[in-house]
């Protein structure tokens, strides 16, 4: 369906074609990046339906506002930014609604039901890990979550994440750090055991399927 002559073009060239009126250019751009944009929306919103709605809003917005793109960032950065903004905006609206009806009790319920998804019966199964991480991510502030999604989950360089979020590199680092600290009590059991007992010291790599490598910059020894 997509015009083959477009496929060799860069993102920026595609966007240019789109602005010039090419009916297929934006579709191809979307095709290239949709999975990552989906991951961003889904992980930020923690809800597939919300994510689909946010992404639809974002893509309509990007489609129509392509003429505003000035080329001072990568096209992908621009697309990500629109998706993140649409997602966070959705959360803010929801929070505003919830605040008037539910209040803190809702949060507490959430904590009670989702804060500790049992992972003890089938330790370190990949699926359980995913579920636990997803559940835990819901419990941290959206801005911290968005930063962690970009940096830790999708592996974007901090500078790229900063451009997407339109904040400084330092702020990205700070949000990630605080987010990780917040996640710690919810996810600690995945590596050490069900409790946060500091005595459980030697289980670090045993329960984890990962290779034990530590992300760059995350070493505790500075």
């Amino acid at each position, binding site marked *: 369906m997509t015009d083959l002559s477009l496929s060799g073009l860069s993102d920026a060239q595609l966007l240019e074609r789109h*602005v*010039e009126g090419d*009916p297929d250019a*934006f*579709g191809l751009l*979307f095709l290239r990046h*949709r*999975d*990552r*944009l*989906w*991951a961003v929306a*889904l992980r930020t919103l923690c809800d*597939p339906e919300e994510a*689909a709605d946010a*992404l639809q*809003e*974002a*893509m*309509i917005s990007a*489609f*129509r*506002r*392509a*003429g*505003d793109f000035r080329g001072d960032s990568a096209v992908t950065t621009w697309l990500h930014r629109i998706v993140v*903004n*649409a997602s966070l905006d959705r959360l803010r609206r929801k929070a505003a609604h919830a605040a008037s009806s539910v209040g803190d009790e809702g949060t507490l319920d959430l904590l009670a039901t989702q804060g500790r998804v049992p992972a003890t019966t089938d330790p370190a199964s990949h699926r359980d*890990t*995913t579920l636990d*991480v997803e559940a835990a991510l819901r419990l941290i502030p959206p801005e911290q979550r968005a930063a*962690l999604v970009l940096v*830790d*989950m999708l*592996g974007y360089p901090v500078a790229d994440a900063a451009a997407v979020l339109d904040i400084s590199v330092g702020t990205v*680092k*700070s949000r*990630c*750090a*605080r987010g*990780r*600290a917040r996640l*710690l009590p919810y*996810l*600690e059991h995945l*590596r*050490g055991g069900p409790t946060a007992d*500091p005595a459980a*010291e030697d289980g*670090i790599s045993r329960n*984890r*399927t990962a290779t*034990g490598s530590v*992300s760059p*910059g*995350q*070493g*505790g*020894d*500075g």
Partner: protein
Amino acid sequence: MRRQSAHVDAEVLAELSAGLIDGKRATRIHAHLAGCQRCAQRSASLAEISTLLTSVPSPRMPDDVVTRLNATLAREAAHRSAPATAPARSSDQDTANTVVEFSRAARGRRRVLASPVAARAFAAAAAACVVAAGGYTAVQLTTGGSSTPLGPAAANGPITTKHTATAGGAARGLPTGGVHAQPFIPKTGNGAGNGPEPQLAFKVVDSGIDYEATSLRAQIKTELNKVTSSAAARSLHIPTPQQYACVSDVTGGTAPALVDKARFQGRPATIIALSHVGKQFSQAWVVGSSCSASKTDILKYVTLATSGG
């Protein structure tokens, strides 16, 4: 083990790891970590959090979302190439608003006024925009009474008729989404006619059914099937101008397969569904009773899987 000052909390450890703490404070914390098993452990756990997050696989976009978004983009592309857009009368300042605000406007999934950006960007559509602008003038004349006559439309007869002809001609069979500035277009007014078919020829069912959120998809499918199987047995109404404007705005100019004046969760509402002829995708909206061109009042939007039977 040396005795140290108070334990370091997780946030500080995380900030230290992220390189956000330096100088004497960093030295002090490192010194503490060297002698405190508990804090060293916590620091290691924190590092693991990142690893854990990285290990979670990124989901691919599900097929139904792909389909939906492709349909959205196709509709956008169709709108864009449709010349009958509203004139670019809002200022650039309006479009300089944040994405957040823009998406709020687009949230109802209805067509918003064609942006100046679009108008600027597509020089190819410039000629057609003039036609649309003519139509807009006619609207102004209609509402503005004795303005200066700017064209033949103002000279004689009911202006709306003239305008209808203009808008229909501009439409050329393509979706005429910019209904904000357009009056009711009768379904006979399909103009210049190199388009595929008359736009938005539809009638309204008055089923009185109370659609429920939980069974909405199934109920809509049932009604859609009735439309295709036994249309004759139903009483159909010609849409009111308000219904027409509402539907054309909601669907973005695509002719609906079903417009049912009914109820939703006990409230008066209208169900608008697109057919899935030729395409693998169908969608439906529930709109409130106040739906019009200027306010679509969308209560619910659903996509309908077409394969399910």
